[in-house]
């Protein structure tokens, strides 16, 4: 089995849910790696090794963002929340308050229009 972390019988899960599981597990692993490299680099006493560890950490961040973008393209609720919160300015909780109240906020109107799509998104690479 590619993953041991399913919480429901695999035969009850759709292919879409299994792929999303793969993506979410991958994202978690990449973020864990970022945390580990960050700590190792900070504690490392060898300058050259510290540079390598920092480089590796940045690579993991890239991997995490690529995976997150896949998730965004395949999950309308992730997509809506990313549109609401990412690349905003000011207090983040203020963005939430504006989104909930319907007041003008960066991309606050996007989630409502996306929430009921069938979530087809990109199928590139599928057969």
């Amino acid at each position, binding site marked *: 089995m590619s993953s041991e972390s399913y919480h429901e019988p695999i035969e009850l899960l759709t292919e879409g849910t299994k792929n999303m599981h793969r993506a979410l597990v991958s994202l978690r692993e990449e973020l864990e790696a970022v945390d580990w490299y960050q700590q190792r680099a900070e504690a490392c006493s060898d300058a050259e090794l510290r540079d390598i560890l920092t480089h590796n950490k940045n690579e993991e961040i890239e991997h995490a963002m690529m995976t997150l973008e896949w998730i965004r*393209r395949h999950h309308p609720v992730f997509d809506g929340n990313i549109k609401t919160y990412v690349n905003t300015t000011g207090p983040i909780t203020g963005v939430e308050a504006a989104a909930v109240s319907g007041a003008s906020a960066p991309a606050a*109107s*996007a989630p409502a229009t*996306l*929430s009921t*799509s069938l*979530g*087809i998104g990109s199928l*590139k690479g599928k057969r």
Partner: protein
Amino acid sequence: MDLLKRELAPITSDAWEQIDEEARRVLELHLAGRKLVDFSGPHGWTLGGVNTGRLHHIEKPPIAGVGHAIRDVRPLVELRAPIALPILELDYAARGARDLDLDPVIQAAEKIAGAEDSAIFHGFADGKIQGIIPASPHAPIAVGSPLDWPRALTAAKETLRLAGVNGPYALAAGLEAYSELVSTGDDGYPLRKRIEQIIEAPILWAPGVKGGAVLLSTRGGDYELTVGQDLSIGYAGSDRQTVELYLTESFTFRVLEDKAAIFLRRG
């Protein structure tokens, strides 16, 4: 409530679940273009057009001495395929039925997938969509008989290579072409395996491709599907017997590198 107005429909959540699942299943089966091209979105209903970054210069401006130019944009096309379902049938879902008769959903999903793929592969002039096949500068390769596919595909792949278009490639085959490609050759060896060895790529069932097949690069950066509202089911109205829904989306499609595909015409 959003533009789809689903909350107003006299449909139980159990029935909505089955309607959505059936539509999703058919769409993922039939949509071929999305399996091959880059995807941007979904951006929601508010996206009305895509910026191409280019200008149309006005030859004779209305005010002399002042240059006039109009920004080139690609408007999003909205598709809508109607669905009529008997309420009595849908209510069976709340009583535990898992096998609702959803043929109208299947038909609408096939139609809208066909419309999207037709625009992607053959273009849609009113929507300013050029289409992969009309945009290709390569002369189509004629395929004289089912046994002619290996020769034609070897030539097609060579044409793309000579044009500087590297792989990976994929072959999107229309109904008739696909049927021939998955048949067994005269020597008993499956034609499909031979073809996939030649093009080093999968053969994709693409009912929206008419009259043959198209070989294209899937390396990325050549074709872009931009989706505003992604495929969704909305509520149009109802009487005591029937509920009217519709399958909808907004999108446009751009050819960024016209040389990245070649058509193989079966005739």
